[in-house]
């Protein structure tokens, strides 16, 4: 389950004012350089703590409390002049906005930019995307990710899927969990990734002190070194199917996800194959955040 937080009128105005001040404090001439957007957002943290305290506390809990649901959906966000300032502001409240070599800038536009047959599902196409954690092939994946819904029309597909690790584990046997804890899974990187071509890790890890579980997972091209490992993997996928939830992220909503405990995915959505009913294709902005 996720926490759904609807901004009241006062918070909406405060967030809008903060993003506008972020707009003007960063040099408009170099807005294409997202470093300036992120730097401006970071400077606003004290003001945000003061002006939107409940909102700030909610985000602090996601960051610091491992018993929190692991995902928060914010609704009724204001329309910022530059939506990148809004996701940068909220991301800065959570932690340190981060970019990875070969993975583009801080803020990535998730929308259809190509429709090639055989392409893996990704941020730049409209294909269905199985439940996954982001950057499973990176040695240290981002701890959190934010997705801001800029345009998303109900009826055009593009529903989001979410699944938490704690719910998933209730569906698995102890033997399967043991297999999934073995570092026998090979995660290959896509061609654009600048780091190591593939990494070998376990899917599940458990913190020895807190007992909290973490996972990394992406289904396509994942390889396993043992038969018992692949059988546990098929059980894990069945478990995802049982406990995943479908959520529609309407325009002007934003989700914050713990990328170590929550999987996300989506249905296919209207694009090249079937044009959007509203003439505006699904568009989300994404930002990674580390602590």
């Amino acid at each position, binding site marked *: 389950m996720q926490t759904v937080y609807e901004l009241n009128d006062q918070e909406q105005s405060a967030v809008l004012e903060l993003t506008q001040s972020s707009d003007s404090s960063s040099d408009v001439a170099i807005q294409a350089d997202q470093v300036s957007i992120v730097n401006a957002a970071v400077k606003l943290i004290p003001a945000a703590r003061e002006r939107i305290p409940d909102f700030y506390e909610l985000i602090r809990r996601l960051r610091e409390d491992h018993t929190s649901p692991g995902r928060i959906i914010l609704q009724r966000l204001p329309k910022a002049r530059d939506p990148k300032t809004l996701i940068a502001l909220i991301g800065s409240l959570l932690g340190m906005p981060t970019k990875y070599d070969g993975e583009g800038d801080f803020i990535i536009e998730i929308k259809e930019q190509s429709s090639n047959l055989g392409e*893996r599902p990704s941020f730049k196409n409209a294909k269905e995307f199985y439940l996954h954690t982001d950057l499973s092939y990176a040695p240290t994946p981002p701890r959190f990710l934010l997705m801001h819904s800029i345009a998303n029309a109900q009826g055009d597909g593009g529903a989001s899927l979410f699944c938490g690790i704690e719910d998933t584990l209730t569906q698995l046997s102890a033997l399967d969990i043991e297999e999934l804890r073995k570092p026998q899974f090979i995660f290959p990187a896509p061609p654009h990734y600048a780091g190591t071509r593939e990494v070998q890790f376990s899917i599940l890890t458990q913190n020895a002190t807190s007992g909290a579980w973490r996972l990394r997972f992406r289904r396509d091209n994942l390889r396993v070194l043992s*038969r018992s490992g692949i059988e546990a993997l098929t059980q894990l996928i069945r478990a995802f199917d049982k406990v995943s939830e479908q959520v529609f992220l309407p325009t002007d909503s934003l989700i914050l996800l713990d990328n170590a405990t929550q999987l996300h995915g989506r*249905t*296919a959505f209207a694009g090249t194959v079937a044009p959007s009913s509203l003439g505006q294709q699904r568009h989300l902005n994404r930002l990674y955040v580390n602590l």
Partner: protein
Amino acid sequence: MSQIIDLSHPIHQKPSCSFGAVDNMPSLSFQEGEAHGVSFITSRIDNLHSNICTHIDFPGHISALGAKFPKPIGMYAVDRFVGTVAVLDVSTKVSKLDTYFDKLGQLAVDVRDERAILNFLGCLSSLAINRDELKECLRLCGRPLTAVVGVLFYTGRSVLWRYNKFESWQYAYFFSPYLTHDACQHLVEARLSFVGVDSFQLEDPIINFNGLELPLALNQSARQFVKERLGSIERFSNHLALLGHDILIYENLRLPPEIRNRLINFHGVPLNMRLEGMNDNALVRPYCTVA
């Protein structure tokens, strides 16, 4: 005078005709061969999946059957893959889908048209071959099941074989006849060694869907329809019914029309692979001799 006919699709450094997001394109490189004093060259193939192009499914292809049938494919006796085989013509079943696909085999239905999508999905059940139809096909071949080692189903889909990836719902090659429960039982009772098909697989094509694809993402009633059908296939599938009785399945065969409704001398022995745990699939180049 007998004629030898190759029943395989060759393996190239191109994607096999399929729909998964998995990269299954073989990659060829060359190394120095093992020799002293003479220069030899030897090739190696990386990323060679055992279920591309023409191949055999063994029981271990099903996760739940791996432990019950642990022996590697090389442990199967050669005579399991050789003998008199009946080629059953089920191509009239496929023609019922003609109105839904264009001449190139692409789905010619507006994915936003809910009624048309539902009609298409509903029509897939007409691909089922029941016990009586199976018996009638066998009668045309003039030999009882007990007198053959296997049966091959001629669907006519071979002509749509391409070295490309497609969406699972978009290409006619993935939609071909399958067996009802009683027809599977008939083959099991006859203790056949194997069956085969000249299309993607011998299975209800509803399993090409997982619920996230575009036609289902845009049409909730179609999604519900598929969800219910998948539930019943989970309990009974051709793969489970046949492989569960160690009846092997040849897929992606290339069957020319001149051998339909005929008996052939079939040879389809895979490589003698005895790698521990390799009990799932095997690449093969089957051929037949006909008088």
